[in-house]
């Protein structure tokens, strides 16, 4: 209450009308060019009203995050101006932005894991008394009262590393509230959350909004945006496309504005027809160097012609599973079989003869950024593909390597000036196409996909997902109801079995024929997409449901699901 009064007084002094400000934040013809010539923001105008929930949507690379980073003082604009409460501002750092009342929660949290929630909140804004002594009691009261007021449901003495991702996000919000911001910028806050946590976040954001905070919400998930916001701004390729009030809008309207054309929301997928088992994990367990049990008796099979999805909150064993399957970490107990061959002790290269693997992070392990497209496309092929070597087996034939890369570029629609440019000069989507293309050019029956479309634009996502389904194929004439389209895909490539690990439930529901849910290193459920919901998967992901009773110890896991 006192704050409100103070605000009114302030408005009187400044002779600003006391009703909510319609030109609260104004950005005028903002331009941002990332060197050398990436035009990230192209004359963007945007007005944000006080007290609204304003969503900013657009594909990856549309400039949403860049725009907000400019507003927040993280990066300087090349030209243009910003005004906040009628005054022209140009923040040199986020600290200045926070001081005047604008705060941002990033996708990656900036917390000290070993500190308590309270310590994280006051870090950098410690209440210091005489002689530099911390005045804890008062600050603790303030933090606690903020938690109570906004119903954040946090225990301020918990260590951050012991709390869930959802709670950590609330700590980030709490940090900003403690610094008294009026504007909260949330950069894709739901990307890391389960459906349940997302619901909780939205309730908290609405409470904050009711308490007078202005919220800017960046997302590319249309349902969420429609559910939450008062106003929606669409960006595309660095431009402001439209700003709409959220009344009577539909997903299709937003999608069309976002992509500039009509979008198919789910990739068409002919029914799966399972063949023989191409991958089998039996009773895999893994204890990491710190003694934590990361995998606990994981068993499942993947059959030819099906896509098995693995859902789970990050850090529940998916990373270790991939390491064991690819041979990057030694199997401690259990067995891995690919195409009937026991590869439990086989080195990476032996396994790569039987499988292809799209790694999670194309920069960290999917490519060498400074090397040319050619050098990036021949990885692993240089050992397994006889067609790019020269007469002498120890040597590669440069011309054949370039032709190989050229072929990859053409058949996977990679936009690149030529195959000698470094891969770093390509956009994320094109880089990912190179990685996926390189792997899919192997003639392997087992495909391991670890987050294959993370951080990729919608167009490339669509393309890559189609390629995945093509790779899966469907066995000709195996069942009667296979449509004409399916026959075409089946002839295009030999069917393979795919294991798809993804944090994106939409992707899993789009692609997977079965969804296995991992929680704390175990597989807790085996679900089939048509008969399950995102909410059900979410509950298993959080451990809110009892694990399905199933023959997890045996190779028969999920065999019944294949009939679909």
């Amino acid at each position: 209450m006192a704050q409100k009064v103070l605000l009114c007084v302030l408005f009187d002094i400044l002779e600003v009308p006391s009703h909510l400000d319609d030109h609260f934040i104004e950005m005028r013809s903002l331009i941002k060019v990332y060197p050398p010539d990436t035009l990230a923001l192209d004359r963007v105008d945007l007005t944000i009203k006080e007290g609204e929930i304003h969503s900013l949507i657009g594909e990856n690379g549309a400039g949403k995050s860049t725009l907000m980073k400019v507003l927040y003082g993280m990066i300087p604009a090349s030209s243009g101006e910003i005004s906040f409460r009628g005054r022209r501002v140009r923040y040199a750092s986020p600290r200045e932005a926070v001081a005047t009342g604008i705060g941002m929660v990033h996708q990656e949290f900036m917390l000290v894991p070993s500190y308590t929630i309270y310590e994280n909140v006051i870090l950098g804004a410690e209440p210091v008394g005489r002689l530099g002594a911390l005045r804890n009691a008062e600050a603790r009261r303030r933090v606690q009262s903020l938690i109570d007021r906004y119903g954040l449901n946090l225990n301020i003495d918990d260590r951050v590393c012991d709390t869930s991702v959802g709670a950590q996000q609330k700590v980030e919000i709490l940090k900003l509230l403690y610094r008294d911001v009026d504007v909260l910028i949330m950069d894709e806050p739901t990307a890391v959350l389960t459906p349940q946590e997302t619901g909780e976040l939205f309730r908290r954001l609405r409470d904050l909004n009711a308490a007078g905070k202005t919220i800017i919400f960046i997302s590319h998930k249309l349902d969420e945006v429609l559910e939450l916001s008062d106003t929606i701004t669409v960006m595309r390729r660095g431009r402001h496309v439209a700003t709409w009030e959220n009344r009577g809008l539909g997903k299709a309207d937003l999608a069309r504005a976002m992509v500039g054309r009509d979008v198919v929301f789910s990739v068409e997928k002919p029914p799966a027809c399972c063949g023989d088992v191409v991958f089998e994990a039996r009773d895999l367990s893994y204890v990491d160097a710190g003694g934590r049990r990361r995998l606990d008796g994981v068993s499942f099979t993947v059959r030819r012609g099906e896509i098995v999805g693995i859902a789970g909150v990050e850090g529940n064993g998916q990373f270790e599973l991939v390491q064991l399957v690819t041979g990057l970490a030694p199997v401690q107990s259990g067995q891995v079989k690919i195409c009937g061959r026991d590869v439990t002790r086989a080195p990476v290269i032996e396994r790569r003869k039987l499988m292809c693997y799209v790694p999670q992070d194309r920069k960290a392990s999917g490519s060498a950024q400074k090397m040319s497209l050619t050098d990036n496309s021949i990885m692993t092929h240089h050992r397994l593909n006889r067609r790019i070597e020269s007469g002498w087996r120890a040597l590669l034939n440069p011309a054949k390597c370039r032709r190989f890369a050229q072929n990859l570029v053409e058949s996977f629609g990679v936009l690149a000036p030529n195959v000698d440019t470094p891969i770093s000069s390509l956009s994320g989507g094109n880089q990912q196409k190179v990685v996926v293309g390189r792997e899919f050019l192997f003639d392997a029956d087992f495909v391991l996909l670890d987050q294959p479309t993370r951080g990729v634009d919608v167009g490339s996502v669509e393309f890559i997902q189609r390629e995945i389904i093509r790779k899966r194929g469907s066995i000709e004439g195996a069942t009667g109801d296979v449509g004409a389209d399916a026959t075409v895909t089946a002839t295009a490539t030999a069917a393979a079995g795919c294991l798809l690990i993804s944090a994106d439930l939409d992707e899993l529901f789009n692609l997977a024929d079965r969804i296995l849910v991992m929680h704390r290193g175990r597989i807790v459920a085996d679900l089939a997409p048509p008969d399950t919901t995102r909410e059900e998967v979410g509950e298993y992901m959080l451990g809110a449901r009892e694990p399905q009773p199933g023959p997890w110890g045996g190779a028969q896991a999920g065999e019944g699901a294949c009939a679909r």
Partner: protein
Amino acid sequence: MSKNAITALAGIVVALLAGLAILWAQGYPALPSYAALFSYSLFSKFAIVSTLNKATPLVLTGLSAAVGFGSNCVNLGQPGQFLIGAMAVAAFGIACDLPTPVMIPLAIMVALAAGALWAGIAAGLRRRFNMDEFITTLMLNFIADYFTLYLISGPMWDRTTYSPMTKMTNPGSWLPMWDGLSAAFVVSCVAFVITWVIWDRSKLGYEWRVMGQNSAFARVGGCRNEANFTRAMLLSGALAGLAGGLMIMGGMQHRFVKGMGANYAWDGVMIAIVAANGMVPTGLYALFFAAIQTGAMGMELETAVPSEFALVLQAIIVLFVVASRESTRLLINRWAAKLRARAAAGGAQDIGKGEGGERRASGH
């Protein structure tokens, strides 16, 4: 590629100009000094032969460093590998007396093996005890230094001389000279070609290059990084060892003398850095640095500029070339960004209207 060549050339030109300015500021006749520098290194048959002889060890130590750094093995043990290679050839040449056609190939093998062994110790320590090769190779330099010093002043000392050195090797291991050009240069050319083929054309070299850029990518792709690390270290060491061995086999002295090796090894490290670990650039810079070092002697004769000026000039070149590689790119990029932003702001009238119709104002 050509863009890199242009930046490198620009760096060299600016560095030479800076060197000119330094000479001038010191009161030396700047232009005549440069004229002497190049006439004594390039513009006569004798000058060219001297430059090529000088380049012989530089090419090899440069390749050694380039192979190491380029595959992410920080081999800074070239001085030690050089000395051990030289000492091994000296010992072999003193102990064995065989006809030339047998002796020379064997001596070359001995040099390669000795250098590889010395680098192999560091590789082994890394693989067995995970000791950083950056430290161990440096430490092994000291061991090699004092070990060879002990040998030439003790057990292998030639008692007919008054300073620490070994006896002369048997003439069977001496490389022939043609008009002053030592056959050692031919040996190092052959080594260059072989190294280039391995590095730029072979599967192994491809794996090394990827390992140098992103070892995680190589590992995921099925390359055996541990084995490749050892192999790269061995080749790197062998090249440095060969450089040392050729010093005994070629030249005039044919014996291990105290203080031999001088700066060849460190110059090689410097050359690899300037050449950004490319094989062909390493060869070219080795020739260029050899020219400067040779020319500096002539310059001292003619214009009294101390030959140490070569060191100054080399240092300036390294700084300018290495610095210009990154900074020109950054500068050009920033400049391009500014232009682009201005163009975007200017184009407001013609393009901006196109999508204006879609805007249903919320705040206006």
